[in-house]
Structures are given as C-alpha cells and as structure tokens.
C-alpha cells in the first residue's frame, strides 16, 4: 500500500496539467523566501562581515561567485536527473524540466565566470587565469551550450528531448572525469600560489552569509525553474484542451 501511494505521486507528477497547477501554486513559496534570504545574505555579506585581512573588500565578490558556481553545477545535476527520468520512464514533463534547467544553469555559469574574473583582477592584475575552478566552469558552460545547441537542431520535440537527454546523462557522467583531469592538469604546471584561487580560510562570520546565500540561490533556482516549466508546458501542450481552462479563457 505504501509503495503504491508513493508511486501514485510520481505518476501524477507526469501529467502536464497537474504539474502546471502545482508549479503555479508553489512558485510564491519559493520566490519570497528566496528574495528574503538573498537580500539578507547580501546585506550580511556586504555590510556586516568583516573585510578579509588579505584581500580587503574585494573578497566580498565570493558572495556572488561561490553561490553561482555551486548552482551552475547543481542545476546541471538536476538537468541530468530530469533527463534520465524522462528517458527511462518516457515522461514528457521530465524533458520539459530538463529543457527549462539549461538556460538557468548556463546563466549561473556565465555569472560564475564573470564574478570569478572580477575577483581575480584586483588580485593578479589579469582578467583571466587558467585555474582549475574557472577552467572547469568554462567547460561546464560548453556542456550547457552543447545541450541547448543539440536540442535546437531538431524540429521534432520528441527527438530533441530524447537526444538531449542522452547527451545530458553522458555529460553528467563526464563531469567528475573532466573535473579531476583539469585539477591534474593544473597541478602539473604549478603557477606560484599567488596566482591560484586559494580557498581563503573562512571564519564563521564570513561563512554564515555564504550559507544563507547558497540556500537563497537554491530557492531562487527552484522558483525560476517552476516559472520556466510552466511556460514550457504551455508551449508543448498548446493544442491540448486543458490549456483553455488553465488560462481562464
């Protein structure tokens, strides 16, 4: 009985009108807490936390860089899992979720790269260094672009969904391999440590805003994802009958 109840939830989620309704209802529950946490976190990080003894005020950009870098990876994992669900169980809404994740993840990746570059400039005097984290982020950006490019290459939505899903899964398996390889590569050509993105030892006062912001960005991702999924479902199901009722027309 319990197993049946759990699977019913799963299969109900596969219905586009159900997911559309759920997404509509849940969005504010994610959006408002996200706004609060992000604003609060930024205030704590930018105004309250003490300046770093080495980097001065410049370090504060980690409050944007670290959460966006973390999110860029988390969104890719979400995308890969959604793609896997769609591929194995043939759930169309799962593909809609994966398709919605991609632009969000790509944007997070670009933000991480830009903020990483901004962080580096005052420290090393250059706009770019090939350190493992930035390099990995750049490769991740290409993985996102490849996924979106592959999807865009097919007119048939079903083919785009399934091919993209397979690519997302292959990419997901590769991410740890690529990450390890980049770290290995970087360690060979050990630049002087001043050029590396050393993880500064982060005392508690600095850490708390970071965690708040991580949570805030995660909720933000959820909210934006729900909005995009709704739009994606509307587009895919535009010929269906339930659309008229849902839109109140």
């Amino acid at each position, binding site marked *: 009985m319990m197993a049946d109840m759990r699977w019913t939830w799963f299969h109900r989620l596969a219905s586009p009108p159900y997911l559309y309704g759920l997404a509509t209802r849940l969005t504010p529950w994610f959006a408002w807490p996200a706004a609060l946490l992000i604003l609060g976190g930024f205030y704590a990080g930018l105004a309250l936390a003490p300046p770093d003894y080495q980097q001065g005020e410049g370090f504060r950009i980690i409050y944007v860089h670290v959460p966006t870098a973390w999110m860029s990876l988390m969104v890719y994992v979400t995308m890969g899992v959604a793609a896997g669900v769609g591929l194995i169980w*043939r759930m169309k809404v799962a593909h809609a979720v994966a398709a919605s994740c991609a632009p969000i993840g790509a944007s997070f990746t670009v933000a991480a790269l830009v903020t990483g570059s901004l962080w580096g400039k005052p420290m090393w005097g250059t706009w770019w260094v090939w350190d493992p984290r930035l390099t990995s982020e750049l490769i991740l950006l290409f993985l996102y672009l490849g996924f979106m490019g592959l999807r865009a290459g097919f007119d*048939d*939505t*079903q083919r785009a969904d399934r091919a993209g899903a397979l690519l997302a899964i292959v990419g997901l398996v590769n991410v740890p391999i690529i990450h390890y390889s980049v770290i290995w590569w970087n360690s060979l050509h050990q630049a002087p440590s001043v050029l590396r993105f050393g993880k500064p030892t982060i005392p508690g006062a600095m850490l708390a805003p970071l965690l708040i912001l991580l949570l805030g960005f995660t909720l933000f991702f959820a909210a934006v994802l729900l909005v995009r999924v709704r739009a994606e479902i509307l587009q895919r199901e535009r*010929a269906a009958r339930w659309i008229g009722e849902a839109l109140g027309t």
Partner: protein
Amino acid sequence: MSVNLLEAENLQLWRGDRHVLKGVGFGLGKGECLQVTGTNGAGKTTLLRTLCGLMVPEEGRVLCEGRDIRADLPAFHSSLMYLGHEPPLKADLTARENLHYWIGVRRRLAAAGLDAALARVGAGAWCERLVRTLSAGQKRRVALAGLALMFAPLWLLDEPTTNLDAEGQQVVGALMAEQLARGGAIVVATHQQLPGTVRAARVLELAS
C-alpha cells in the same frame, strides 16, 4: 484457440501535435496476411515501425505470441524481417556481397544458399555487379532475395512491389504465398492490389 503471431492492442501514437495512430488494434495468426492501406501520410509506415518496435506508442502495446515485444526485443527482432521503402543496399558492394553482409549478420549463411536466393529472384545474371549500376527494380529484387534468404516467421513490408515489372511482381507474389503456406505471417503496407494469389486475411485502413 491458438495465440496470434502478432497482435496490436489499441496503439496510440503522436508525432508532435499529430495524432497518427488512433487506437489501432488487430490480431494476426499464422499463415495470415494483413494489408494496411491508407492515403499518403496516413501512418502506414509509422504503424509498421511501431510493430517492429522502432517506435514506441504512447499507449497500447504490440504482442508476439501473447508476450509484449518490449519484454524481449532482440528475440522478437531475430524473428522478423522489415523492408522499408528503400532497399537497404550499399551502392559500392555487389548484390551478392550486400546479401552476404546484410543477412550474414543475422544468420549463418552458406554460399549455395546465397546463389539459390539470387537465382530465385532472377538476379543470377547480374549479381556480381555493383549495386550502383543496377536499376531501381533490380535493387528491389536484391532486397527480395534477402527476404527469401532470411526465413523470418514475420514479414513487415512497406510497398514491396515498388519499381517492379510484371515478372518481379510475380516473384513477390510467389515469395509471399510460400511464406504464408509455411505458417509465417505478413503485414504489408500498400495501396495496390496484392500480387499473385496472395489474399489478405484482413485489411486495415488508416485514416489521416
């Protein structure tokens, strides 16, 4: 009551927004032939590909001898032969080589068998020529030789008589009649009359 060789239950399939298969169902026993007709774009090829297992219907299922084909697709595939619109031949190989590779991947073949099959379809004279030098009708005949060679219990044919002259159509008719006589089954998509003495046990008309 014996179990049907091939059975389709309420097949529903969409391609994008188009509802192509709208609840197709039928049962096909041993020695029976099903003819699928319909206008261009009605879904004949889609139905054949769904019966093969290449396409997956949104609803409904295909059964072989009472079992869902998706439970063991490789075994199902090893018992069927699908011929699409175009004969699956390589232009840079001879007719004989094509058969050797195409059917050899599926069954152990002997040279005598190859020669006999080619003779059967009237290809004996030109079987050592590269396929790129053959006419459309000759290529179709080579594909039919593959059919004769393969001995699959289930045939799924998409417009098998295309490009064939009267003699070629007779060959198709003879092959089909033999297949039915030995207990095999055929699903043929065509809007032309079936060749030779072959009569369809039932006709399925698809509306677009």
